[in-house]
């Protein structure tokens, strides 16, 4: 069984729930090494996504992700808005018109999302950004895609993203607002990496 438009809609709805639920946590993470707005930005953005999806329900998973991309780009602002916007745009494009997404397409969509983030933000692994959640997620998804079970791909990606978010703790930030802090950025978790892991975890829940 593949993943259809309803999975995509559930994914986005669960992502919106996660952003609302973790709003304060993401604000708190953004406080010591940022500007205390990541949770507010993501929550505002995904609430707007829910409105847009309700206004014009998309017919494919790809279309749902593209609409999400446009909405995040126009509603989130900050660094996260364009980065997530590009990620969802590239992922949506990778899914194409497929009614059902198979494991290989899913893995390549994650890869496209990650590449989009890197293309816009120019961060490398270890720079203490959301890339540090996405890159291990993409690698794990690719490895899991072999036995063509989409649920395993989703799970592998989510778990790797979560580990990736934790791995940002000891990193010295070299991109984004946290980089202004130099050494003082060490010992804090990157908020964008955490929101990325939450979104990838929501994708698992949507497929249950």
């Amino acid at each position: 069984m593949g993943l259809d438009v309803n999975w995509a809609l559930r994914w986005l709805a669960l992502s919106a729930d996660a952003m609302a639920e973790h709003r304060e946590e993401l604000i708190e993470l953004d406080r010591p090494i940022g500007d205390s707005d990541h949770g507010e930005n993501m929550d505002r953005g995904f609430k707007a996504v829910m409105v847009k999806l309700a206004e014009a329900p998309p017919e494919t998973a790809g279309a749902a992700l593209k609409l999400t991309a446009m909405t995040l780009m126009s509603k989130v602002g900050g660094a996260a808005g364009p980065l997530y916007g590009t990620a969802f745009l590239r992922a949506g494009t990778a899914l194409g018109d497929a009614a059902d997404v198979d494991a290989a397409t899913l893995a390549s969509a994650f890869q496209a999302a990650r590449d989009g983030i890197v293309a816009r933000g120019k961060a490398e692994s270890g720079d203490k950004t959301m890339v540090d959640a996405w890159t291990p997620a993409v690698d794990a998804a690719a490895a899991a895609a072999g036995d063509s079970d989409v649920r395993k791909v989703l799970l592998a990606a989510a778990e790797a993203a979560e580990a990736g978010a934790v791995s940002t703790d000891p990193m010295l930030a070299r991109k984004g607002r946290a980089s202004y802090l130099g050494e003082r950025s060490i010992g804090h978790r990157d908020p964008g990496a955490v929101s990325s892991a939450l979104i990838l975890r929501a994708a698992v829940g949507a497929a249950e």
Partner: protein
Amino acid sequence: MKKLINDPRAVVDESVEGFGLAHADLVTVFADPKYIVRKDAPVAGKVGLVSGGGSGHEPLHGGYVGMGMLDAAVPGAVFTSPTPDQILPATLAVNSGAGVVHIVKNYTGDVLNFETAAELAQAEGVDIRTVLVNDDVAVQDSLYTAGRRGVGGTVLVEKIAGAAAERGDNLDAVAAIGDRVNQNVRSMGVALTACTVPHAGAPSFVLEENEIEIGIGIHGEPGRHRIAMENADGITDRLLEPVVSDLGLASGDKVLLFVNGMGGTPQSELYIVYRRAAQQLAGQGITVERSLVGNYITSLEMQGCSITVLRLDDEMTALWDAPVHTPALRWGV
């Protein structure tokens, strides 16, 4: 958190609405998407100037919309860069055909959102140049970081590039003078207290009674390091020295000295800082030809200040002196 606000999420909406009511002779405010344009925009034949960024830095940027400065300002949520769907219509609204310069403070979010908007505007046939402001010497400049932030220098870039556009300079010339200001300006800031983002509800960091943050930006983010409280002269020296040395100022140079309040500092204190900075520059044979003291680029109610120095040449001085008529800066008219 104690603020003169209603709904924390409506702060920018209501504040910009009030701004529009108070300055209806100078600006037109659009609510959704939100942007502020000069009343008489687009001015025929004139290069348009658009800037923007997160809110909470007032009077930046809306306060600088008007004759001789910006044609449009695009306010984001508090401390959050605006989005392309705001920047694009602002850009289109002020384009007279002579092209538009985006003045962008160097933050990842601002850069990415303006980048997208510029692409979209270009796709609609508008010629765009971008002037990136990155004057904060508190940030180590390196290829491997996000680079220096845009802070106090932004006000000076907007005034001087605005005057160049007003006198009829073409697109490349306006962008070039903006870049020249940026290359000749440096800033550094200090916080005595943190500020509280309305939607966050708690201060962005906590300073003890005897601590200050040196090298802060304008988003309530922590600075480079925290030191024990010092007197005004000591703090002034700490801010001024890296600015002067990074600029490579030498005896005989002429400068504009800008002491900026972060929003919660009394003017009397800013003049105490100005006094020391002016004395120190004079002691090094540097002539303060122009000055600016007050709250011009702020961080909500933060207490603290920043010092900005611009190395002047005759053209920049003349453009600084040129008439300007905006809600927050006005002279010669």
